[in-house]
Structures are given as C-alpha cells and as structure tokens.
C-alpha cells in the first residue's frame, strides 16, 4: 500500500488502491487476448490502451506476470519481452518444424504482395509512382495493405508518400530502421536473384 499524495494524474493512478484479484485476472486475460489476436509484438502503450491503464509501469508488470505464467505452464506457446519493451506471444521455435505445414494461407495474394514489395524497396515512395508501376489496381492494394497495418502514409508530408510499418518489419524479420531495412532487402534480393533461382 502506498500513502495517498497529490500529484499528476499518472501519480494519482499509481496511488489508487491495488486492483482486486478479479480486475487483475481480467487484465491478464485482456493482454493475452491482445497478444493472441495481433500475432505480432505490441508495445506497452497499445497493451495499456486495451486494458485501460495509462501507466506503463503497471502495464509492464502485468505483461511480465502473464509471461511468467506462460513459462510455468510449460506449453507450446511463449511470451517474450523484446528489447524495446514490446511483448509478443508466439509458438516456441522448437515446435515450428512439426506444425508449420498446417499453415496454408498466404498473408497476401500475389497482386497486393507485389505492391507491398515494391513499396518496401522504394520507400518512402510517392503513391502516384506506385500506381504508375503497379497499375490502377494499386489503389485497392494500398487500401488493403493499410488496413492490414503493413504500410502507412508519411504523416510529415502533404503529398501521399508511402512507407512500411514496424509490423511489416516484424513480420519479415527486418530491421525497424528504414535505411538498414532497405540495405537488408537489397542484400537478400541480390543473393536471391543472383543465384538465378526463382519460384
């Protein structure tokens, strides 16, 4: 228990009576739900917004508790805390080879995937340029890719400039740093096309 003091809303929140067991288990379940549905790393802000808690410290404590619970349970799934204070629920890598073949659906159909690849490679890139190269269907691809959270508009610009999101980087295991990511893409791309083997 902490002594009541006055202060910022953040501090006030911290001094509210400790959450009941019921509240806590509801919050843990909500964090689990969020991580499961997203299938990608989520930051403390996002997790906090789901449970309605603004304190990062408190959210982190809950996420870590869920992580410990998972570890204790000894299951096929694990929760990891990444370096940048993000949490992810994922399959333990050791099970992956055994069950991978059960995944049957692609993230995207070929058309939108091509548009996404082009944006990733040329980013930040004018929407107009994407449409010129990928044809008029590019607009519906862009809409779809934005809805999926794979690309976004550059907010600093008046004209429509596209770039990939951190979710894109997470999905393909690429760097969050744009310059680095492009270098990675170029390098792997050269390796692949250089080997002369294409699907």
């Amino acid at each position: 228990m902490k002594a009541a003091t006055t202060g910022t809303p953040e501090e006030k929140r911290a001094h509210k009576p400790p959450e009941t067991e019921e509240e806590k288990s509801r919050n843990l379940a909500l964090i689990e739900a969020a991580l499961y549905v997203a299938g990608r790393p989520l930051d403390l802000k996002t997790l906090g917004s789901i449970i309605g808690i603004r304190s990062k410290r408190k959210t982190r404590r809950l996420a870590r508790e869920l992580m410990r619970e998972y570890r204790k349970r000894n299951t096929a799934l694990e929760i990891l805390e990444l370096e940048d204070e993000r949490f992810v629920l994922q399959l333990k890598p050791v099970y992956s080879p055994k069950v991978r073949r059960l995944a049957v659906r692609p993230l995207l159909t070929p058309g939108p995937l091509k548009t996404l690849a082009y944006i990733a490679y040329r980013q930040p890139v004018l929407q107009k340029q994407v449409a010129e190269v990928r044809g008029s269907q590019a607009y519906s691809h862009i809409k779809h890719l934005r809805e999926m959270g794979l690309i976004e508009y550059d907010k600093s610009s008046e004209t429509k400039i596209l770039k990939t999101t951190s979710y894109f980087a997470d999905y393909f295991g690429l760097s969050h740093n744009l310059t680095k990511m492009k270098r990675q893409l170029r390098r792997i791309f050269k390796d692949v096309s250089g080997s002369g083997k294409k699907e």
Partner: protein
Amino acid sequence: MERPWYLRPPLSVLFDLDRLGRLRPWDVDVAFLLSLFLNEMEKRREVDFRASGVALDSSASIHLMKSRLLLKLEEPPREVEPVTDFVPPPLILPIRYELTTTTIQHLLSALDEALRGERLLAARPPSKPMLPPPPEAIPPITAYLLEVEKLISWLYERMLRLVGGDASKKSLMTFSKLVEGLRRIEKVRAFIALLFMAQRGIVELWQDENTENIFIILKGGLKGR
C-alpha cells in the same frame, strides 16, 4: 483483330459516343459501370490508360447530363424498389490467429516481378493521345455555368436569411436546416450549388460520420457583392 473486352455490353455504352448522345442518362449507372470496368481490368491484369481515359470522360459527360437535367427541374425516375427477402443478421466471425505462409522469399520474388514492371514502364515510349472528341451530348459549358451562378445566388440568399443577414460572423449551419421545407429536386440543386460554393471558398464544409449531417460555415460574401 479481337474486339477489346470493354466494347462488349454493358461497358460498351461508355465507349459508344453516338449512343451516348441518344440515351437517357438516368438509364446509366455510372458507378456500377466504372467499378465493373476497374474490376475487369484488375482481373485481366492489363492496364489500358487510353480506355480508362475514355471511360472517365464518358462518365463525366453522363454526370454532367444528369446535373443538367436536374437543373432543368426534371425529376429523376423513382428508384426501383429493392427486392425484399429475409436477410439474416450478420455472421460474427470468431477471431483466430493463423500462421501465414508468406515468407521473405515470397516477398523477394514479388519484388523481382514488380521491378520488372518498373523497367517496362521506363522503356515504354509515350503513347500519343487518342481520346475521341467530346460527345455532342454535353450541354454547352457556358450555359451550364450560368445556371450554376443563378443557383449559387439563390442558395446564398437562403443562407443569409438563416444567419440573420450577417455573413461576417462565420456562421455555422447544417445542410438539413438549410434545405428544410424544400422539394427533393430543390435539395439536390442546393447540394450542387453548395459544392460549387465550397470549391470557391465561399463556404467550408465538413461531415459528421456518425450523424451524416453536413455542417456549413459561411466564410464570407459572394465576390462582387
């Protein structure tokens, strides 16, 4: 040579300028035709900018013909009653995570193809404009604009009455209030005039997504008043 796919009905109406002059614009569902056209082009994975241009031009003409008829107080035909049948409530999808099969290798081969498209685009010589002349069916543009001017004055007077005669206060009103008591056809005309006024900066518009009401701010007087 095979006839291009878009010259077949129902799309052909957009490419047959003679017919465009003869038909009743109310009989053409432009939105439907254009999305059909886009879908078809997407399905065939071929982009024909020339055909798109003509389709766009014809659609604009048909829209203009419709607006023109509205200004002449011609009532649009009554909407066809939709067929009624029991529509069940929406199915709520259960949420399940699913591992997807797309890997970085897929991304890279997609990139390879996209870049090939880019190279092709750079190599293609610029094609000559081949748009046909605008159809005669389009009313003379000056007469049309004159009608619009009259319409704007009429609507502006209405707005002034609504804000108590003073346009300098940046008064706020809603579209529904503005057209209260008007006939359906007059509401449509008011809306057209409103769009022109917004484009000229006489009013500012925004729409509340929840109520769908359009809010109007009167920003100043008509030029020359």
